[in-house]
């Protein structure tokens, strides 16, 4: 059975910033949401920590986890190019996998997913709808959904989901069936990405992978394991994201990392996703940004765009109808690469900010994405960015920067 996945941007309301003064008199702003902290600032480890170290990984802190930046002597550029030309395996087990289950065969979950759980929350006292997280949801049945969210948003997401579930289960809706959330703690998640990913994985399974098209998933028998495999990824290449029970993670990682597949770290993951024009939560998306500004209103279904009926609809529709004040765009930049935080100018006026930028290993050009004032977002618009106190020419460019290579059957 093949399941269909969907990408959602969960929209929330910017929590009112609470102002407080520190002991040193400095004024800080706190979100009203408290995040539980790990004891002693300890980093979490995925099940593959030892596997990475044995393979020569340089481990770095990322989203509360110790994760591989690169392996052995393989530089970021070589590693990046290998994924574009062959195949790479990424440990993305730091991401949060969870399920939504309903006890009854009702339509409770789809309705929650459609209207509240996924494109989420606005309540009346807030001014503006922003993005809590970007989320992939896969419908396994009318009453069962598989959800993957970002590691860096773990506490925020889980607390938010629990709050929404409680609201649902204590409302009239509960009659249609209670909804439960189960977090798949410690489960493995591996991304096999690249033009040779499909032929490699096909060698390990009897299931015809040609039927598994981009955006769908299935339970796939892989050398005696039965694993949830979703076709897609975060590189722009064809590939798979494979969910693995904790005890099988190391064995599956070994199975999936033989030649020509190379282990690939966070460094290459970032440059690949930026070439693919994809957002990194925290850089390119945050709670102050609406899905319309981010160019992600395609995640909202046509019917709901028109009828509303989802939390946050009022602000989102305002942006849809009247246009957002700023928009996320891509840039090609001359001279030096512009990084996150670089100011964007039109003449003397600052009209935006770069949110991600790198020298692209595939294109040998400096690429970036950022937000600009609406009206200056059209392809070909010539602007300037400031890098090390000097202005550099920046031309608004369509994304993805590198053509995507998905298997659509």
């Amino acid at each position, binding site marked *: 059975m093949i399941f269909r996945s969907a990408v959602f941007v969960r929209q929330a309301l910017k929590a009112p910033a609470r102002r407080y003064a520190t002991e040193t008199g400095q004024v800080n702003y706190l979100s009203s949401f408290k995040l539980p902290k790990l004891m002693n600032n300890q980093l979490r480890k995925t099940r593959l920590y030892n596997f990475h170290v044995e393979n020569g990984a340089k481990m770095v802190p*990322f989203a509360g986890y110790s994760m591989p930046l690169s392996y052995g002597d393989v530089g*970021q550029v070589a590693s990046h190019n290998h994924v574009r030309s062959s195949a790479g395996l990424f440990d993305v087990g730091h991401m949060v996998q969870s399920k939504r289950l309903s006890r009854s065969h009702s339509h409770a979950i789809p309705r929650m997913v459609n209207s509240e759980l996924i494109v989420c929350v606005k309540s009346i006292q807030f001014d503006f709808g922003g993005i809590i997280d970007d989320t992939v949801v896969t419908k396994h049945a009318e009453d069962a959904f598989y959800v993957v969210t970002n590691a860096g948003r773990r506490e925020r997401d889980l607390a938010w989901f629990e709050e929404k579930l409680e609201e649902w289960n204590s409302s009239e809706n509960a009659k249609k069936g209670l909804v439960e959330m189960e977090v798949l703690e410690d489960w493995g998640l591996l991304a096999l990405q690249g033009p040779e990913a499909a032929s490699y994985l096909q060698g390990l399974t009897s299931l015809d992978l040609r039927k598994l098209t981009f955006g769908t998933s299935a339970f796939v028998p892989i050398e005696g394991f039965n694993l949830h495999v979703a076709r897609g990824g975060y590189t722009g290449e064809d590939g798979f994201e494979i969910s693995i029970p904790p005890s099988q993670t190391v064995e599956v990682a070994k199975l999936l990392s033989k030649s020509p597949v190379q282990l690939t770290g*966070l460094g290459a993951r*970032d440059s690949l996703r930026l070439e693919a024009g994809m957002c990194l939560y925290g850089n390119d998306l945050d709670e102050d940004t609406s899905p319309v500004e981010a160019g992600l209103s395609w995640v909202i279904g046509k019917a709901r765009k028109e009828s509303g009926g989802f939390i946050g609809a009022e602000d989102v529709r305002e942006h849809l109808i009247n246009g957002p004040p700023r928009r996320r765009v891509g840039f090609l930049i001359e001279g*030096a*690469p512009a990084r996150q*935080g670089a100011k964007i100018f039109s003449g003397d006026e600052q009209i935006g900010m770069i949110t991600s930028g*790198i*020298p692209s290993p595939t294109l040998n050009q400096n690429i970036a994405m950022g937000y600009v004032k609406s009206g200056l977002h059209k392809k070909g618009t010539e602007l300037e960015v400031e890098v090390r106190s000097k202005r550099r020419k920046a031309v608004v460019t369509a994304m993805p920067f590198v053509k995507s290579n998905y298997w659509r059957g």
Partner: protein
Amino acid sequence: MQAVLRRTLISSSPLLRHPVTSLSRSWRPSGFRNIVTKKFTAEHECVAFDDASGLGVITITDHAQSSLGDVVFVELPKVGTNVAQHEQIGAVESVKAASDIYAPVSGTIEAINEELSGQPSLLNKSPEEKGWLCKIKLSNPSEASVH
């Protein structure tokens, strides 16, 4: 070379934050009586000062290049620019990060390594020789002193 390493993906600031000021002095009485003094900065730059020519050759250390990873872009000052000690004079960039270069000494930029614009990887292969960044005519040679 201050590790400004703007956060591209890593939440904690990485790599070059190991402020080590190591000093070394290499005497080179190779027939001539000139003395080359090497001074390392906390920012992982090095200036090799030749007291005969009055020129200091600016490089980054092997540790710095290895922390940065594949260098893909180098920005250098223009020849003839007057620079003050600790002034930012350019940057060395890998895919993941940009690191600013600071002048370890005051003076005038006498030459820059033109090879680096076409072959930035020289900084990885030979950071302290073929991958030299620029030559500064010192206005205050005592700044190169290791004392």
